[in-house]
């Protein structure tokens, strides 16, 4: 992921992203996207996967990049859109929708915030041949905003609102993004967490536990909490 000077590798990907390009990605690579991407989050997933509505465009023909995001955007009086900044929203909440979404949409790249669990990558992403790219910061909204060339469409905006609509965006050098999962289902976050976790005992050393515990610290509701 990084060379000996700690510099991260930089990659440009064009949409629809080819399987060969996906295979070349390594955890921690810095990615910039060119082409088309669309936003889709809970309301879009619910409409298509639960309520059975057809997606508003032929996604398979459009692009294979799904962005978990809502832009800071406003509708101009002439009906066009002014997109100031874009920032991803935390993806783990959408885990349950993804297996079917991959089928319906043909998505191969999920761009979002915070990644999913390694379990999800192995069970859902690997069979779909998909990877996860995480946005950076996560507050890099202005940089990502700069990468948007044009708003092609804002589907379902009247029913779902600005935040939940399906925005189709034409992008150029859209990033930076980091490769969080690869085609083998490895997770950069979990790999890093394992290193951080090794040091946690040292940080907590000598700090005695509070006198009243909380559920959540134990999930057994029959447990006493006083300690």
């Amino acid at each position, binding site marked *: 992921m990084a060379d000996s000077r*700690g510099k991260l590798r930089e990659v440009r990907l064009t949409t629809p992203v080819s399987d060969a390009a996906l295979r070349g990605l390594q955890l921690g690579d810095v990615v910039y996207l060119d082409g088309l991407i669309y936003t889709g989050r809970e309301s879009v997933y619910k409409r298509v996967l639960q309520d059975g509505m057809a997606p508003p465009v032929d996604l398979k023909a459009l692009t294979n990049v799904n962005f978990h995001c809502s832009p*800071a955007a*406003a509708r101009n009086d002439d009906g066009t859109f002014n997109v100031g*900044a874009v920032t991803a929203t935390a993806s783990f909440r959408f885990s349950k929708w993804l297996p079917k979404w991959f089928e319906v949409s043909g998505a191969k790249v999920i761009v979002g915030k*915070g990644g999913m669990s390694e379990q999800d990558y192995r069970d859902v992403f690997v069979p779909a041949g998909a990877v996860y790219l995480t946005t950076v910061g996560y507050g890099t909204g202005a940089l990502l905003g700069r990468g948007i060339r044009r708003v092609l469409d804002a589907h379902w905006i009247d029913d779902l609102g*600005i935040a939940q609509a399906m925005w189709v965006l034409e992008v150029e050098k859209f990033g930076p993004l980091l490769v969080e999962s690869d085609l083998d289902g490895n997770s950069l976050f979990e790999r890093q967490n394992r290193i951080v976790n090794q040091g946690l005992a040292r940080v907590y050393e000598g700090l005695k536990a*509070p006198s009243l515990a*909380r559920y959540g610290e134990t999930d057994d509701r029959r447990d006493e909490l006083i300690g």
Partner: protein
Amino acid sequence: MPHPPKIAADALEDAARTVMAKAGIEIPDDYLGGIREMADTERGDLSAFVLQAMLENWEAAKADQRPMCADTGVPRWYVKYGNEARVEGGPVEVERRLRRATARATHDVPLRPNRVHPLSRRDNDNNVGINAPEIEYSFEPDADWVDITTVHKGGLFGTDYRMLFPADGIDGIKRFYLDTLVAFGKRGLACQPAIVGIGLGGSKDTCMVLGKQAACLRTVGDRNPEPEIAALELELKELGNSIGMGAMGFVGSSMVVDCHIEVGYTHTGGMPMSVHCFCLSSRRATARLHPDGRVEYRTDPQWFTPYMRRDTVEWQTAAESFEKSA
């Protein structure tokens, strides 16, 4: 003391819209300086990359006049009234103007219309609704100005509350602090490095309010005037940065840009504590409106004045002390 002229409601609304845009677009200098220092010392390659990207992002935001983060958080207001200040139309007019400024800035900047009804999820598309935006007040003796501060606080992660007890002591405080940072720091959900605000004591609601204000309304480098609390602030800052976690939860040391603690007298049997992370988009901006029409802008809200932290029954105003000495 005769009342000074009233502050014009139009001027207040204009200033409110200006601070909304400033908060959304320009990162405050104190926070920027803190992140630059962290970027210099960060050894983790991924965490260092994130900090570098953030520095570029803030430049892009300022150059293009676009929001630094598209999640423009939940905009809210803090109003500090000088005791002698009067605004045209009174407090109801002030609230109307702040709500109007919120709606207009949401469209003009643009900010993301984040505010929805919690059950129906109805979105008025303007960040205004029931109990939104919040407007909190404080007062200042011997002043004829009004300060309006907006904060665009990132919403979902990095805040927690716990009832601790006196016997839990400093250990309890440190543990709960670490628990919160580790829980929300993983995968960078708190968008650290953060300004961490801690509320200690008070009632549960006060404890939450103080902690949030400590995070959002004090600048990087500012210390609580009570030496014991100031020392704890520095100790906790260092503790947070020794977890081994940096930006986005990657291996590193950039977790806490600064730690601010505010206290309130509390029930004798308890020691409630709240922790709040003000994220990589630590957005705040203040305008001071004078009765002569002058408006001054700044990024330090100067919210916690000696008057705010008083622990006596009485507080002598300048007029009273003048009368006494005369």
